[in-house]
């Protein structure tokens, strides 16, 4: 799929937006994450600190009591007391007083009880009455029993909101029997527990608890929680260092932090409403989202404006450019902008204007060129016509002249005239041919012929010239020579004639040989190679490629020596190419050249090959003398009239002359003729109109053959003539032999 600039811009825009939002969200998330972590960390540190201080307090007290309880003298003292063997104060108790006097740990006092829970000793001495049951004894005993070694325990004793942690350490005698318990009391006020937590750490409504191993709240910043169990928390939930989690309750979300007091298996637990604890974070979150949305909106607006203000004009420009490409150079493109796009639009307009001018100029030039071309063609036609007409007179008259009795000198002169005139005619024909070929006006025919015929037809007229120079002109033909092929025999002959004539011209002595080779052969097609080998002057290697170019002869001196226009080989190449063939030359200067032409052709079938054979006998051979035909010559040019009359008389024909078509019709009204020779271009009524009228009038009657005479040599002439009802065309200038051939072909047989 192809994406337009606008769509690309939108995609880029969308990607930018995504990136912006994503980065903003990532930043926001990390920021909120950090904020959240900060809140959590503060709680974690708070409970950790508290748990550590409680742990230290309990550990210090326990160490102290254990050290003292390990003294054998105390166990011994208890034994003595039990046995009541000593009435007096036991000395060990004095030491106890000394050890625990104003203890910094056990500010709640220290008590020694015997194995039945009777108070034996206390410090300070006024906190309990000696020899009375210790009130907390059942709880202490239970707690000790729970311990694996029942050697120490922590018991919480509460009374009217205040609480004491009793650190109890058992005393053993030498048989490791428990003989008593030493108990130190540490007041645990709410302030003690929440000391570090109450420093503004917890949000409003939050609470800090000290929870014992069984899950009961031992101390709390929330007095009514004392002695209760926490609904959301079990001691088994947590161990180790501080941990902060949110807990989903049915009606609220709590943020709790816990840390353990390992020595007692207790925990410090804080609770607060998550919403309250994270209120600041949430406010930030909302504020950031609002900001993000507002900024995103602004960004989208600005970018959309930019995109539209760029792609709009660009689209208009594109449309305008498309219109110009489609050929609309008239409409102006308006873009009311002063920026680069405006300049671009102006440039486009300027470009369109230039294109408009150029198009007009081109059109004018084209018209002129066409006119010039037409003029050239017309000129050529005219010139050829105008030259051929007098040439007809010159040649015809010369021919006639040679038919009279002349002295040898006169005959030599006349022959020279004839030869010169023939050269001139051939020159004119060359020029005309080349013009036609170059103008692409050559139309190839397709007829059945044989190479033998073609070569014969080429060599026969040239034989005389060759012999006169003392050259041997021969041909070598393949065995397939007799097979008929399809092709344009006229052009093939023209090509061969040009090459052979060229070879004869440039060969002073020796021979010229024409070879025909079938180089490729299949069932339907073939390729023939004509080689014309001479023993002439040859062509230097440097010039070999150029000899086929028009008006080129190998050396300037050649022209002087041999004459010619240099068009012959150019015509060869042009015609060869028209027939899909190739041509070339191999040569050795001084020894001779071999020109070759290769042409494709199609084999003719046996049936097709019959046609020319059948056509041949259609023209009955006649004796040259005494044709005895009545011929109407329609011709306005007096010279041509005189020439034709002379030739026709030579052929033994009676001739009547009419100087235009109208007169010819009148003559035909009164008399009948065996054949009409009709000039095409005449005053009053031309040959074509006259022919049409003749055909109209003779409808249903015998058909008189009409042969057109014309000096024009343009293609389509014959076709026009046939359409006008004429039967054949004889191009001026013509020889007596040509005239005779045509007459013999068309004159009706019965007239003899």
């Amino acid at each position, binding site marked *: 799929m192809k994406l337009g600039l606008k769509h690309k811009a939108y995609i880029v825009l969308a990607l930018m937006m995504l990136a912006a939002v994503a980065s903003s969200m990532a930043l926001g998330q990390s920021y909120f994450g950090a904020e959240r972590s900060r809140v959590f960390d503060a709680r974690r540190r708070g409970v950790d600190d508290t748990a550590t201080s409680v742990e230290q307090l309990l550990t210090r007290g326990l160490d102290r009591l254990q050290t003292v309880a390990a003294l054998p003298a105390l166990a*011994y*003292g208890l034994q003595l007391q039990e046995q009541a063997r000593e009435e007096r104060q036991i*000395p060990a108790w004095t*030491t106890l007083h000394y050890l625990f006097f104003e203890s910094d740990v056990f500010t709640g006092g220290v008590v020694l009880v015997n194995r039945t829970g009777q108070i034996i000793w206390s410090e300070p001495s006024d906190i309990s009455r000696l020899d009375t049951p210790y009130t907390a004894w059942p709880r202490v005993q239970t707690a000790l029993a729970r311990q694996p*070694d029942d050697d120490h325990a922590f018991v919480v004793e509460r009374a009217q909101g205040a609480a004491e942690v009793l650190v109890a350490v058992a005393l053993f005698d*030498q048989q490791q029997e428990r003989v008593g318990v030493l108990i130190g009391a540490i007041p645990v006020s709410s302030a003690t527990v929440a000391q570090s937590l109450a420093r503004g750490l917890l949000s409003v409504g939050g609470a800090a608890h000290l929870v014992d191993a069984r899950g009961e709240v031992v101390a709390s910043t929330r007095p009514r929680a004392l002695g209760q169990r926490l609904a959301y928390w079990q001691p088994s939930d947590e161990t180790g260092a501080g941990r902060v989690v949110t807990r989903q309750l049915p009606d609220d979300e709590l943020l709790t932090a816990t840390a353990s007091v390992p020595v007692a298996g207790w925990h410090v637990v804080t609770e607060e409403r998550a919403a309250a604890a994270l209120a600041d974070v949430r406010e930030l979150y909302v504020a950031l989202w609002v900001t993000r949305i507002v900024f995103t909106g602004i960004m989208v607006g600005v970018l959309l404006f930019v995109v539209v203000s760029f792609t709009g004009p660009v689209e208009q420009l594109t449309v305008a450019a498309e219109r110009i490409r489609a050929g609309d150079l008239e409409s102006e493109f308006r873009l009311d902008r002063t920026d680069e796009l405006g300049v671009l639009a102006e440039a486009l307009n300027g470009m369109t204007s230039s294109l408009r001018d150029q198009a007009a100029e081109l059109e004018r030039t084209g018209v002129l060129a066409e006119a010039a071309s037409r003029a050239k063609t017309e000129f050529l036609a005219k010139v050829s016509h105008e030259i051929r007409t007098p040439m007809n007179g010159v040649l015809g008259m010369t021919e006639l002249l040679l038919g009279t009795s002349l002295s040898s000198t006169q005959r030599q002169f006349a022959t020279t005239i004839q030869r010169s005139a023939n050269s001139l005619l051939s020159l004119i024909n060359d020029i005309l041919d080349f013009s036609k070929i170059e103008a692409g006006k050559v139309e190839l025919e397709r007829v059945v012929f044989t190479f033998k015929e073609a070569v014969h037809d080429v060599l026969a007229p040239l034989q005389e010239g060759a012999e006169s120079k003392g050259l041997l002109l021969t041909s070598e033909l393949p065995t397939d020579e007799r097979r008929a092929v399809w092709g344009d025999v006229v052009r093939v002959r023209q090509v061969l004639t040009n090459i052979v004539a060229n070879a004869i011209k440039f060969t002073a002595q020796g021979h010229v040989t024409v070879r025909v080779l079938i180089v490729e052969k299949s069932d339907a097609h073939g390729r023939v190679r004509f080689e014309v080998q001479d023993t002439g002057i040859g062509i230097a290697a440097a010039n070999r490629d150029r000899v086929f170019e028009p008006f080129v002869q190998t050396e300037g001196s050649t022209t002087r020596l041999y004459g010619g226009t240099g068009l012959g080989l150019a015509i060869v190449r042009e015609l060869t190419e028209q027939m899909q063939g190739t041509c070339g030359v191999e040569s050795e200067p001084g020894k001779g050249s071999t020109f070759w032409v290769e042409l494709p052709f199609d084999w003719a079938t046996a049936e097709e090959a019959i046609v020319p054979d059948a056509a041949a006998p259609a023209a009955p051979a006649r004796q040259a003398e005494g044709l005895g035909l009545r011929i109407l010559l329609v011709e306005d040019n007096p010279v041509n009239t005189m020439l034709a009359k002379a030739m026709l008389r030579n052929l033994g024909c009676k001739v009547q002359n009419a100087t235009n078509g109208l007169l010819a019709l009148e003559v035909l009204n009164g008399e009948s003729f065996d054949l009409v020779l009709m000039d095409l271009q005449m005053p009053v009524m031309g040959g074509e109109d006259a022919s049409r009228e003749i055909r109209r009038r003779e409808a249903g009657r015998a058909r008189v053959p009409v042969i057109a005479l014309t000096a024009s040599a343009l293609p389509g002439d014959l076709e026009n003539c046939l359409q006008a009802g004429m039967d054949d065309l004889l191009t001026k200038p013509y020889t007596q032999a040509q005239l005779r051939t045509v007459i013999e072909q068309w004159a009706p047989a019965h007239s003899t």
Partner: protein
Amino acid sequence: MNWTAATVSALFGTRRAFAAVVLVLCPALAFAEGIEGRVTIARARDYRDAVIYLAKVPGKTFTPPAAVINVDQRNLAFQPHVIAVFAGTRVAFPNSDEVRHNVFSPTKADHFDLGSYPLGSSRSRTFDTPGIIMLLCNVHAEMSAYVIVTETPYFAVSDKDGHFLIPNVPPGQYEVIAWHERAKSVRATVTVSAGPPVPLNFELGK
């Protein structure tokens, strides 16, 4: 070496001193037999002052050493805190403190009171009755000491790491007792043969 020779001669008397010295001087045979091991005590800070001793060596009688062993009273403490002696050994308790000290035994098996006496004076007592004798000071309850009186001269007191070695125990099968003031005593049976000391470890504690 000299210390060992002296100890041996103190334990076994001069008659055997010569033989003992010969034994000691021959490295291949020295400490060739005995009981060696380690004592661990649950919940104790260190493993010192555990006493490991043979309960009885049947069919043999030993002569108590003539030398007197000192247990000093210094810085309100008996030093050493625990000693083991072969029954019949005499132990002296000199007072090295500024205050008066008293030494008495509340142990029923060997109940005695040496009375209290000042710095520089010393009183002594011969411990004839095998058993764990606890010593206290009437004046200072935090002071205590133990004298483990054994029926054989084969015993050892563990060091800080709990390591002990009872040397030169003749080959045979014996009951070995490990004692510590804060734990119940543990008994074990061990067979001593010629060669390196037999390993024996104890775990004390409830």
